[in-house]
């Protein structure tokens, strides 16, 4: 079966002052799969995700998200979890979900409540009092409970405990089973996440160094982590 690519970068370049974040990057991301975006610090992973929601503009090249240029106008179809992003600390968990229902199109409040329950989040807890792991779980719910075509998760496992990581991974899998969508996960925690990837893209210094089917790579090299080590060590 031929794979469909909903997201395409063609010769995209982005520089922050003199530092190149993306260097004539050409990459395609398959629709309806979980894609892992992997690479060392400064590889351009976060920049790539930010470009998809219009938070960063390319200097050169063409970006296509389901046939359209990135802009806030298309963000109703995209759920984006920012790297090191915090939610509004003065809200409680219940208030955050109610707020999300209004401001995020296609937010499923019932699903979000079920997820919060399964992730041991107290609805009455104020967000500024949550631990880092609990806040990460909430942030993930705010993305996964949206019935959108594309989910972008920038470092969803960063700095959180093993139990939280397992719960987050399980929720990503459940979310795909519930409603198939395109998910792009940018992470350094390859060991925890590699089992959920269908497709992987390795970036280095703003360029793509390898891309392929995750299962095939695992069959050839043993694990995605070992591919990563071979590429970057």
């Amino acid at each position: 079966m031929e794979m469909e690519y909903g997201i395409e970068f063609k010769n995209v370049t982005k520089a922050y002052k003199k530092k190149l974040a993306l260097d004539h990057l050409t990459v395609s991301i398959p629709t309806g799969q979980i894609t892992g975006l992997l690479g060392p610090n400064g590889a351009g992973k976060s920049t790539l995700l930010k470009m998809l929601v219009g938070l960063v503009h390319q200097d050169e090249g063409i970006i296509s998200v389901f046939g359209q240029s990135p802009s806030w106008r298309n963000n109703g179809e995209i759920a984006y979890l920012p790297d090191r992003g915090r939610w509004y600390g003065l809200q409680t968990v219940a208030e955050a979900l109610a707020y999300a229902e209004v401001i995020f199109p296609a937010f499923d409040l019932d699903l979000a409540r079920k997820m919060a329950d399964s992730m041991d989040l107290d609805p009455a807890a104020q967000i500024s009092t949550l631990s880092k792991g609990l806040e990460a779980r909430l942030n993930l719910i705010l993305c996964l409970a949206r019935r959108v075509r594309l989910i972008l998760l920038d470092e969803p496992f960063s700095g959180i405990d093993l139990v939280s990581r397992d719960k987050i991974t399980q929720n990503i899998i459940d979310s795909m089973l519930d409603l198939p969508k395109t998910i792009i996960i940018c992470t350094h925690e390859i060991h925890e996440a590699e089992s959920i990837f269908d497709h992987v893209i390795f970036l280095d210094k703003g360029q793509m160094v390898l891309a392929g089917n995750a299962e095939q790579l695992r069959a050839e090299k043993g694990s995605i982590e070992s591919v990563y080590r071979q590429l970057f060590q």
Partner: protein
Amino acid sequence: MSTSSVFWTLVHNDSRLGSTFRLENHSKGKFSDIAASFLAFGLFFALAALLLGFGLHSSDLFSERFVVILNLISSNGVALFFLAFIPFSFTLEMLQREWKNGTVGWWLSLPYSRKLLLAAKSMAGFLRFIKILLIFVIITAFLTTLTIYLKPDVGNIALLHDIPQRLLYSSVIAILVSPLFLILGTLAVLEKSKIRLLPIFLPAFALGIIGVILLSSRLRAVFSSDAYLFPPWLSILLIFAISTGLSTLIFFFATNVLEHKVEL
């Protein structure tokens, strides 16, 4: 969801975002906490009023000076300056907090026009400004009444008799010019863009406004000491028109900067 409900939900959240005086770990919604807060504020004001009452009652010198201070803070120029500056700081703070608190990624990736996002912040600032204005008017009116009641014969007490009219006049003018200062606060986005001209733009803008007011006798009339007795309606209308016109220009500029020049 309709744009209107999104707008007011954003306004509600933004008004909490800009709460400088709110404790970060305040456990919201508990009746006992709210009651305790009211009790603490009530006790504080009662104590302050008692101390003030004692001062006014026991010292003529203190009373005379206090009358001068009350007169000064309710004079058109001083009251207007402070009342107009407050909304500017509100919008500025609300925007800066999105970056400082790390919520900006969520905020900027919302699928709504940048005009809606900035308009919600400005509206939240306006509502907070009205609250502060009311508090200012109530406290000044209370202090004036207290002083007149306790020291009806102290020197210059006659100055205080028309404070209600002065406050009303200043409040109306401040409300009319507040959109300009609220929108001016949205220029905080310049600091987050490639155009880092805010430290140059703001003083230049302030000097420009002061210059125009000083050079135009019609505009100056709004700030004259007896303006509250005979309001210069044409001048007030002119001030309102200038405020609205400049606000619109600055708002479109700020939304354009936010859409095209601000990156994370």
